[in-house]
Each structure stands twice: as C-alpha cells, then as structure tokens.
C-alpha cells in the first residue's frame, strides 16, 4: 500500500509539474506588461495653448460618458481585489471604510464630478480634458474602480509637496480643481500677480526632486507647457520615457510624462489643435497665440497636416482671438527672423523680403506663428525663384506673378538660375499668371486645348494644327504651357501659312518648306510677319505656285487662285486647259491656307461655251475671267469650239463680258487671226490687204485663251484663193475682194494650186467683199 501510494503521488506530482510548466510561463507572460516607449513627448512643448484652453471640448454629459467608459462597474465594497477583503482592508488601513465612490458617482454639494469638472473648465476656460487627465495623473481617479476618500480630498495634488503632507487649505475635490484651473488660467494670462519661476525660453528643469539626478535646460515654448511645469516641476528622464506608463529608475518622475500619455491616448495629440472652427461656421482658423487666421483655401488647410485635424470650438473662443489676415503660405515665427513659405507640411525659408514679395506676400503682413508651430512643419530647402510642380510644370515666380517656364534655354536666355524646388501646384494658386518665360522660335502647346503657338518676340502666333505638322514647325522645340500663360501673351491669330520676313519677302509655307510668292497680292493681303531667322531656317519648297493651281491633301478639288480668290475647277479638261503650258501641275497646301483664300466660283477653261439655264445667250470664254457673247454657232464652229455648258448664274457672273459679239477675228499676243473651220490663221499685212481685213472688228483673247485655239502653221496670206465649202466656185482674192474664177484654165493662169486654196466656211466668205469675176 505504501508503494502504491508512492507511485500515485509521483504520477500526480508529474501531472502537476507538467501543468505548472505550461501555465507558469503563460501566467508570467500575462502579468508582464511590455512597456511601449513614449512617442512624441517634447519637454519644451507638452501641450499646445489652443488645446489647453479649448474649454468647449466636452459637455457634462460627455464627461460623464467618458467616466463611465473608464469605470463601467464600481467596486463599491472593495471586493474585487486579490482576495474578497484585500481592497477593503487596504482602505481600512488608512482609517477609511467602504462603501467607496467612484468618480462617476461622486458628488459634492449636489453636483456630480462631471458637472464640477465642466463648471471649472468653463470658469477658467481650461480644457476639461486637461482636468480629467490631471485627476488621473495625480490620483488615478478616472480609471480607479475602488478609490479611497483621500483621492478626492487631494484630487489634483494641489498643495501637496512631494516630501511632505498636503496643505489642508487646498483639500476637497471642487477646491482642488478650482485651484488647479485658477493657476493654469493665471499662467495662461501671464498674470502679474501670479509669479511663475519658469519663463518662455530656456529653463533648467530637473528630472527628480533629488537634485543629484540632474536635469537639462528646456526651451519652454508656450504658456500651457509653462503651466504644467508649475504643476509638476520635473521632466521625465529617458528611463521614464522608455517605460511608457511604467516605472523608470530612481531618478524618474512621471507627472508630465503621464499627462502627455493619458492625454494622447484618450483625446489625441495634445500638441496640436491649432486648426479650429465652430459647428455653425465652416471657416477654419489657424490659431496662434492670441491671433486667428482664417483659412480660405482648402489647399492651404491641406498643407497644415502636421498641425493635426480641425477641432470644434465655441464662437466665444474665436471671438477672444484677434482676427488676422486670411492665411496665405508665408509665415513667420513670433520671435521674428526668417519668413517661411509652407506647402505640404514643409516650410521653406525665404531668402529675402523681396522674394517674399515675388511670391505675393508682404514681410510685414505674414501670419505670425509660434516657434513650436513653425518647428512642427518639416524643414525644406531654401526658396527659389523657380518652382517645379509635382504635376510637371515649372514657374518663375516674380512680382506676384507665376511665369510658366518653357524650358531650360528659356530660363537661361532670361538670366534666371535653373535650380528649383518641387512643390504642389496648389501652393502657388494665389499667384496670377504672368507672361511665360519662353524663347523665340519654339512651339508652345496649350495643355488645355492642344493648340499650338509659335513664339515670336512678345507674341504667340497661333499655328493651325495642319500647318504645325509641317516640317518647318514640327522640327522646332515644343513644350506644354497652360492656357492662362498663353493668353497672357499677345496672341496673333490668322496665320494661315502666308508669311513675310522683315524685308517684305512673302512666302507660303507648305509641307515641303517655303515658296516665295512673286505676285503675293494675287494670293492674299494677310501675311504674318515671322522672324527672319526662322524663315531662313525653312527650306525652299519644290512646289511651284506661280500658276496659281492648288489643292489640299484632304480634297480632290483643284483650284486656281486669281486676284485673291480661289476658283474651283470643275473638270480635269478645264484644269489642263487653264494651264498655259497644258501641264497638270499644282501645289499641295494646307487646308488652312486654302481656306484663308476667299472662294470665287467655278472656273472653266478659255474657249469653253457657257450659258445659263434661263438665258439663251451663249458666251465664249475668251480669257481666264472674260467672256464674249457668241453671235452664232457658225462663228464658234470656225473657232473649233462646241459643246455649250449650262452653268450657274454665279459662275457666269465671274466672267467679265467683252464688248459686242464674237466674230471670226481674234487677236492673240498682238497678232490678228481669222477663225475658219476650226483653225485660226494669222492675218499678216499682206493678207489684210488681200482679204480686206484692215478694219475688221477683232476680239482679243488672253494668252491662255489663245493657247486653247488651234493655230494654223500657215499665214492667211499664203492663201490667195478660197472656195466655200461644198461649193464649186473658186475665188481669187485681190485688193480686199473675192473675185469668182470662171474656169479652171483661168485658175491655172492665175497660179492657182491646192496649197494656195483655202476652203472656208460660208461665214468667213461673207467677211470678204464680192468682186467682179476674173
């Protein structure tokens, strides 16, 4: 039995050891709170003045809810300790007894603790959250579910030396809060009757009441921090900071550390709260000291990210502040000195007040911020005159204007250094656009519309897109500019491809280059003056425009340009016959260039017969833009012309009518001709005498018109005999008369032969006077 019991005991011990081995480490781990070091504690700036004095952060109800959230159940009878009586015994050991009252249930003079906290906050305009944290860091009252009565008596630790009992005149929950808040307010007001040993600036702050623990010089940056040091005259040493809420070393002090920790965890960062608004008004203000600066630009608000979020305050809080100018992006520390520009949470020092002015601000009018606020912004590089934006633009900032920069060469041409800071474009939204920094003979492209502009001195020449594609311009450097930059320049419109240089030479720019216009007035009166160097750089086009024939790539219609108008040519035959050389040459130009030339009407080749549908008169086109009425189709037949075209009235009206009607006599290039049966024969002086054509009425045709007539290679004087077609009588021409020859023998006798015999139309025969038979 002894042996068996021994074995059973061993087994039980083994199991117990196993259980112990498992749960002991766990229980140790559970009870070991791994300390998170304090983050962001700054001994010179524990809490911002704005947060410290924002007395409207919580209503009594909110305070009550907050207290309830921290102690949902109060251990009134002290039974919740390690043993059912441990807490009660602890309380009794100090001469008190249960029941205990938690802060949420505590009342004094009929007022709840929440109401007392709220009332005190309102009375002294101190943030009730500050008072809540004060109650916690001094006595743990906010989280304590079994507070001892002494904790209320010296709830805020006011009047309690570190090394001696408290002064009883300060006892009492309401009294404690009142003294604390009164002191805070006195220091915030810099009251002359409340001496504080701490100054704004450098102070020697100890780590611990024990002087041997030492301390450091702390630059106290605001009154709220100054007030906290009046309350707790020690700063946490590194061991205290490393311990989070825990204990550091023998030289640690925890008051200000715990204030910062509790405030941060329960109410957010105590260091900010510079941005405020009321519930009823959306205007956000940057509060700095006694001043408030309205923020009108959402981008500026966005640039104050390091200042934290926007807090809600009562109107009366704002009313107590002096309203400054609308907040721009230039700021200065209250102590004077450097003026900064801020953007995206970064501050960039200006180099001079003149540079401040360039950015649209006035050194004397910039918002004054506290040193801490200035320090809260990240430090950036020195401000530069040139600024690159995160969306790829570049501006030269001068005299309150932002001048968009075309390229490095443009900056260099203007003597501006290339170095630039990179910021969001919104950071210069206050500046108006100035004339861009751009050099000559480059192409600026509008970011907004895609339109292109040729830079010429102080002007931008609007380049139509089809012309901009031409090598003359596409080879030029191009860059994007905002429309606002472009319209700040003089924009020259109407460039249609016709250009002139400073000496008056006029050109058409086409796809191949430039073509010098010998008769520019024939094309347009609107030539855009372009830089000589630019025009010089454009190669000469191989296209010839001298004949005036044009077309575009996008349309098959051919045009002839005459006297500043373009006339469409309805058929290929007309097109060829409008050419003096009967070639098919034409030049391809831009649509814009073509469209800039006013439209005329259809143009037909000289020699064509035209009429309108509502008039019987037929005209012969006897020149590029001239016509003459046809007397009879016999005449046109003698000219070799046929096929009447019915044309619109407007086409007809294009042609200037010559006097009279078309006869068989025509003058071409100074020579007179007779039209006979499809050919024209030159009437030389001998023929004039023989045929009696000395004073006949002739119509003059232009060279193109004449080129369309079939000229005989033989002059009329070679023909001394005529015979009317389809008749047998041969006539001998002598002294302006036609004399019938009676016999073939006579004909032979007169020297007649087939090469001297001209077969004529009846009409031509009628033009010769009859003579006596031979």
């Amino acid at each position: 039995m002894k042996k068996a019991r021994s074995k059973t005991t061993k087994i039980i011990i083994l199991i117990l050891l196993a259980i112990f081995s498992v749960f002991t480490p766990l229980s140790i781990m559970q009870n070991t709170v791994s300390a998170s070091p304090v983050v962001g504690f700054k001994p010179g700036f524990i809490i911002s003045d704005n947060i410290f004095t924002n007395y409207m952060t919580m209503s009594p109800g909110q305070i009550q809810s907050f207290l309830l959230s921290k102690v949902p159940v109060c251990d009134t009878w002290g039974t919740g300790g390690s043993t059912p009586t441990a807490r009660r015994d602890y309380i009794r050991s100090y001469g008190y007894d249960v029941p205990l009252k938690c802060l949420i249930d505590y009342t004094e003079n009929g007022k709840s603790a929440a109401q007392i906290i709220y009332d005190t906050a309102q009375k002294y305009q101190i943030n009730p959250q500050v008072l809540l944290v004060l109650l916690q860091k001094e006595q743990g009252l906010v989280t304590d579910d079994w507070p001892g009565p002494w904790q209320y008596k010296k709830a805020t630790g006011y009047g309690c030396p570190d090394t001696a009992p408290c002064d009883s005149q300060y006892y009492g929950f309401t009294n404690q809060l009142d003294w604390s808040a009164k002191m805070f307010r006195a220091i915030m007001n810099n009251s002359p009757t409340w001496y504080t040993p701490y100054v704004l600036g450098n102070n020697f702050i100890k780590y611990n009441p024990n002087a041997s623990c030492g301390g450091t010089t702390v630059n106290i940056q605001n009154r709220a921090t100054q007030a906290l040091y009046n309350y707790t005259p020690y700063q946490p040493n590194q061991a205290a900071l490393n311990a989070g809420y825990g204990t550091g070393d023998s030289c640690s002090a925890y008051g200000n550390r715990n204030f910062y920790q509790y405030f941060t965890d329960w109410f957010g960062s105590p260091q900010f709260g510079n941005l405020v608004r009321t519930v009823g008004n959306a205007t956000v203000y940057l509060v700095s000291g006694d001043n408030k600066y309205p923020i009108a630009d959402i981008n500026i608000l966005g640039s104050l990210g390091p200042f934290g979020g926007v807090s809600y305050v009562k109107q009366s809080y704002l009313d107590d502040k002096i309203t400054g100018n609308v907040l721009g992006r230039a700021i200065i520390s209250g102590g004077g000195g450097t003026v900064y520009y801020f953007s995206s949470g970064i501050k960039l020092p200006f180099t001079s007040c003149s540079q401040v002015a360039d950015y649209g601000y006035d050194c004397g009018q910039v918002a004054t911020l506290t040193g801490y606020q200035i320090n809260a912004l990240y430090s950036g590089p020195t401000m530069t005159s040139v600024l690159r934006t995160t969306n790829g633009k570049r501006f030269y900032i001068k005299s309150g204007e932002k001048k968009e920069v075309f390229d490095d060469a443009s900056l260099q041409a203007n003597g501006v250094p290339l170095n630039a800071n990179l910021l969001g474009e919104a950071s210069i939204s206050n500046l108006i656009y100035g004339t861009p920094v751009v050099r000559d003979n480059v192409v600026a492209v509008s970011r907004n519309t895609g339109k292109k502009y040729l830079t010429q001195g102080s002007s931008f020449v609007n380049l139509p897109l089809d012309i901009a594609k031409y090598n003359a311009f596409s080879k030029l450097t191009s860059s994007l500019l905002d429309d606002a930059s472009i319209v700040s320049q003089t924009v020259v419109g109407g460039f249609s491809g016709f250009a002139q240089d400073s000496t008056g030479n006029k050109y058409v720019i086409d796809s191949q280059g430039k073509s010098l216009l010998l008769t520019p007035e024939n094309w347009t009166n609107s030539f855009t003056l372009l830089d000589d160097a630019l025009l010089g750089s454009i190669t000469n086009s191989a296209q010839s425009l001298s004949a005036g024939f044009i077309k575009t790539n996008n349309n098959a219609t051919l045009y002839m340009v005459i006297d500043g108008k373009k006339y469409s040519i309805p058929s290929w035959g007309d097109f060829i016959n409008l050419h003096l050389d009967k070639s098919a040459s034409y030049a391809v130009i831009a649509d814009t260039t073509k469209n800039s030339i006013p439209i005329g009407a259809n143009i037909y080749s000289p020699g064509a017969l035209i009429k309108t549908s509502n008039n019987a008169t037929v005209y012969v086109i006897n020149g590029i833009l001239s016509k003459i009425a046809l007397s009879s189709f016999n005449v046109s037949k003698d000219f070799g012309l046929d096929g009447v075209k019915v044309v619109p009235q407007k086409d007809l009206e294009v042609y200037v009518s010559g006097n009279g009607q078309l006869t068989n006599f025509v003058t071409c290039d100074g020579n007179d001709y007779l039209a006979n049966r499809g050919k024209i024969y030159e009437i030389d002086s001998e023929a004039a005498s023989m045929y009696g054509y000395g004073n006949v009425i002739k119509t003059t045709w232009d060279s193109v018109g004449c080129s369309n007539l079939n000229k005989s290679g033989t002059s009329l004087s070679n023909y001394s005999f005529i015979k009317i077609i389809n008749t047998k009588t041969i006539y001998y021409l002598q002294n302006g008369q036609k004399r019938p020859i009676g016999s073939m023998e006579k004909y032979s006798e007169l020297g007649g032969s087939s090469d001297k015999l001209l077969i004529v139309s009846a009409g031509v025969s009628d033009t010769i006077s009859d003579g006596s038979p031979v």
Partner: protein
Amino acid sequence: MKVKTKKTYKKKIIIVLVCLLVLAGIYGTVAFYQDWFPFVKDKNTSKDVNGIDYNLPTDEQKQAGERQKKSTAEQNPDTKTNTSQDQNSNSGGTLQVTITANQNGNIVQIRSFITKISSSGTCNITLTKGSSKVTKSSGIQALPSESTCRGFDISTSELTAGNWQATIVVGIGTQTGSATKLIAVK
C-alpha cells in the same frame, strides 16, 4: 497479472496526458505571441468624432493610476493617532531649498524651490565673487507642490562674467532654510 495489466494502462494514460499538456503549452506560448485564441486582443477601438477614447482603460493606464493612488495614500485625519507634522504648522524647523540657474542672454535666472507650500515669507539672495557682492530680496509664491522665491532675474550688468556663489536664505514663519550654488555667468 491483473496488477501488471493495470500498471501498463495507467502509464499510457499518463504519457498521453503529459504529451497533451506539453502540446497545449507550446500552443499557448505561440498563441500568446501571435494573438491567437485565447489571447486575441480586442482591436475594436471606440473613439467618437472628436477623437475621444471611450474604451476601457488599458492595464498599463490602470496600473499607472494605481501606483499614483498608493503613493499618495494618507491616513484619515479623523482617525489619525500619531502627531505628524501638518503643512499648516508654522513650528520651527529647517526648510529644504534647492537652487537652479540658467542664463538667457543677458539675464541670469536664479530659481529656488522650497519644499513647503506657502505664499508668505521672504527670500534673500546673496551673490559673491571675490570682493563683489550682489544682494536681492523677494517674496514667496506658492506652487501646487512646492513654493518658490518670486525671483531672481539678474542682469549681467550686475554680474560680471565668472563664477558667482549664490546663497538663498528663505524664511517662512519660524522656519528657515538656505541653499548655495556656484553659478557661472557668461
């Protein structure tokens, strides 16, 4: 034979139980560090639109409060039997005084802290350097946890550069105290 069979059965059970416990221990250790069941942390934080934390306090927060509570616990005066010194007592004794000094530009700031809360009394400071001597006096300002002399900001026009010995003598009622510190004036 019966007894032998019983023994073998028991051993097996014990081995299995021990193995299970070891495995549970391994899981427990891993679970603790990985926040697995049953150590899942409540990540559901409750903050209102103003950023006020309405969650239960953390253990760290409670423990820090508890430490503060216990460090300030004091006897109920109604039941107090001993005769400890009361702060309001003006009976004679020595006041503990400490001095700190800091120079801000041309102002030498000399501060004294007295381990008694009082807004009455006097402070006298004497600064000596060789044969040079500067004396000042001030009243006393009560602070929440101590008192301070209402001074002393002394211009460097009164204190030439060098080491000055500062002695502050404080008198509150019948209590007195003093401190001495060597101050380097630049």
